[in-house]
């Protein structure tokens, strides 16, 4: 059965329904139900079969499942968020919010599952517009400013990506001729060797800039930190990582075309330079951040840079590392943001502006469980064991040394600086003296967050063999 098509269609149908009817809380519950169904469908995609514009390979199915999981947990936490915050916006706006939630999910899945580069582009565009509306949802000046930034920078990125897409199509003409075949990833990667190398290289630069904007690689990252910090957190913060994954996977797939083509330039230097720039800019931007959501926005830039770096290094093992890093980081960030939402709501409404580190300091006094879980998530982000990211970063560094030893120096330095800057925040967050307060209940979301952490740990260190095979085959195919 074509579960992939169903999985893509479901969120858009749900979006339409949620946009038309329901009070905020009902909408949130409906949203959660839809997300649950969607998660089931993304799991089913592994056993489904699909062809045409949407043709799913195991890698896409894996990331689709991850997206489904993240969407589900965000939707679950969203119920509490909406219930606590319902008076902040009129009911109509909440409907729009849930619609956007589903559209972002649907766009991510469409982008992941799409075999057609045009459909991929359209999915990215839809996701961008939906996110922009989400960021400006609260209509605060800062929210509007962030949305405007997102829109201008994202729009330019989308334009460049379209140009790149067309160039790829053009480059494929000698091999595939006019028609749909020249826009299908499968056909393209099968015939990459016969494509026009020079044109393909040019196309890749535009693709890199277009989708790199969505993946928030420096210097294309300008929209990300602000947009993470604005809007309802479950949508603009927890879900937005999914679009980053779509963009990174797209870059990886296009990169493969270049590698497979003899005449094209090597994509390594482009990816390495952008990846390192992301790593270092993030490293030095961390230390003055006072807003946690913005802080972790920069962390997303860093992680995205690491994956891009891994793709730039190339070779099956490095790409394996990069893909693993993406999976782990997505899961971890999702857990982190859920913990962050919970932590902020321990001290008042979880609205933008209430995510300052100073607002959350001394969390252990408010709730031990949430405090330790949030600290655990932040710690895991640093990549020190027993965090799962350690495994992927280890693979990437070791591959870097074998492939391009001198690149390991800046990579190590960047990782070092980032990790230290991330760890620095844990101390005050946990142990600082907080205003005297009564401990508050952790709620059920503590289990969700713990599940994320456990999943990250297990996927990294006790990865089931089928998953190992899936990832390594995908990495081999895309090397």
């Amino acid at each position: 059965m074509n579960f992939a098509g169903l999985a893509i269609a479901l969120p858009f149908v749900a979006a339409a329904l949620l946009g038309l009817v329901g009070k905020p809380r009902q909408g949130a519950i409906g949203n959660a139900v839809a997300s649950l169904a969607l998660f089931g469908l993304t799991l089913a995609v592994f056993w489904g079969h699909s062809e045409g514009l949407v043709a799913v390979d195991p890698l896409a199915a894996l990331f689709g499942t991850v997206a489904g999981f993240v969407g589900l947990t965000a939707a679950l936490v969203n119920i509490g968020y909406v219930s606590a915050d319902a008076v902040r916006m009129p009911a109509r706006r909440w409907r729009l919010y849930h619609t956007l939630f589903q559209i972002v999910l649907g766009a991510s899945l469409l982008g992941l599952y799409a075999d057609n580069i045009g459909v991929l582009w359209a999915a990215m565009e839809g996701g961008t517009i939906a996110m922009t509306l989400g960021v400006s949802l609260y209509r605060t000046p800062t929210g509007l400013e962030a949305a405007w930034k997102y829109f201008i920078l994202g729009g330019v990125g989308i334009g460049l990506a379209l140009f790149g897409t067309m160039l790829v199509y053009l480059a494929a003409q000698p091999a595939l001729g006019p028609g749909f075949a020249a826009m299908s990833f499968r056909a393209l990667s099968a015939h990459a060797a016969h494509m026009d190398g020079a044109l393909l290289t040019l196309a890749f630069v535009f693709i890199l800039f277009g989708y790199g904007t969505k993946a928030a690689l420096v210097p294309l990252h300008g929209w990300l930190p602000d947009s993470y910090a604005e809007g309802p957190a479950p949508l603009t913060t927890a879900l937005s990582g999914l679009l980053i994954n779509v963009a990174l996977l797209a870059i990886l797939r296009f990169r493969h075309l270049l590698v497979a083509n003899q005449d094209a330039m090597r994509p390594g230097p482009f990816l390495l330079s952008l990846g390192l720039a992301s790593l270092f800019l993030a490293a030095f931007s961390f230390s003055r951040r006072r807003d946690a959501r913005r802080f972790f926005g920069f962390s997303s830039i860093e992680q995205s840079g690491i994956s891009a770096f891994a793709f730039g290094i190339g070779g099956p093992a490095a790409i394996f590392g990069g893909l693993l890093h993406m999976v782990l980081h997505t899961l971890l960030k999702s857990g982190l943001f859920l913990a962050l939402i919970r932590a902020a709501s321990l001290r008042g409404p979880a609205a933008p502006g209430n995510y300052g580190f100073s607002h959350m300091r001394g969390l252990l006094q408010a709730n031990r469980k949430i405090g330790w879980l949030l600290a655990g998530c932040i710690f895991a982000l640093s990549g020190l064991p027993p965090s799962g990211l350690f495994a992927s970063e280890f693979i990437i560094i070791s591959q870097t040394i074998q492939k391009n030893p001198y690149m390991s120096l800046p990579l190590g330095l960047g990782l070092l600086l980032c990790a230290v800057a991330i760890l620095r925040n844990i101390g005050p967050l946990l142990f600082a003296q907080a205003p005297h307060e009564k401990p508050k209940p952790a709620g059920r979301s503590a289990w969700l967050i713990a599940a994320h952490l456990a999943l990250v740990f297990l996927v990294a260190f006790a990865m089931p063999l089928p998953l190992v095979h899936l990832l390594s085959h995908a990495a081999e195919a895309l090397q």
Partner: protein
Amino acid sequence: MSLTFSLAHLLGGIILLCAFLQLSQRRLAAMITLYQMEALVLAAAAFWQGFAQHEINLYLTGIITFALKAVLLPWGLREIVLRFNMVRAVETALPMAVSMILGLALIGIAVLVVLPTTMSSISLTREDLAIALSVVLLGLLLMIVRRNALAQIIGFLSMENGLVLAAIGMPGMPFVAEFSVALLVLLAFLVVGVFLLRIREHFDTLDLSGLEKIERRGR
């Protein structure tokens, strides 16, 4: 060289000229007029390609381009100019001469980049591609050298024209009409955004307004 190619070249050349002339304008009204011309020629180019390639899709694209870009959007833009009283010359970030030299350099780069490609069996020649790339880059440049929000939007629109120009030249490319619609949605959001957000003068002012307050609150 057949008539198909030479006419397509001619139309492309006019679009490039319009895009380049936009760089040299200080007043919004003139820029909008140039944009309108650009859109008209683009619509003509779409029709011509549709005729040459026998593609219904391209006719559709031409109609959309004409109706929305050559008529509706310029009207909306002019409305904004009048309503927000932006008839005077806009502030430039770079001296006019410098931005024009940069524009020329960009065209040079576009040609340099496209030059090594070999497009033997493709109807779109490298000149066409170079023109499209130049229009895209000039649009981006326009967004950077003007401090006025509307001028930047015009730059964005011009860049998007370059994209459509490239798209209609692609032989048998699917989704061309869909692409242009999708892009138009983006554009519509931009223009509506200007209306809603009441961005009068600068992106810069929008950025800086209340920045100190935000800084204090902690970012």
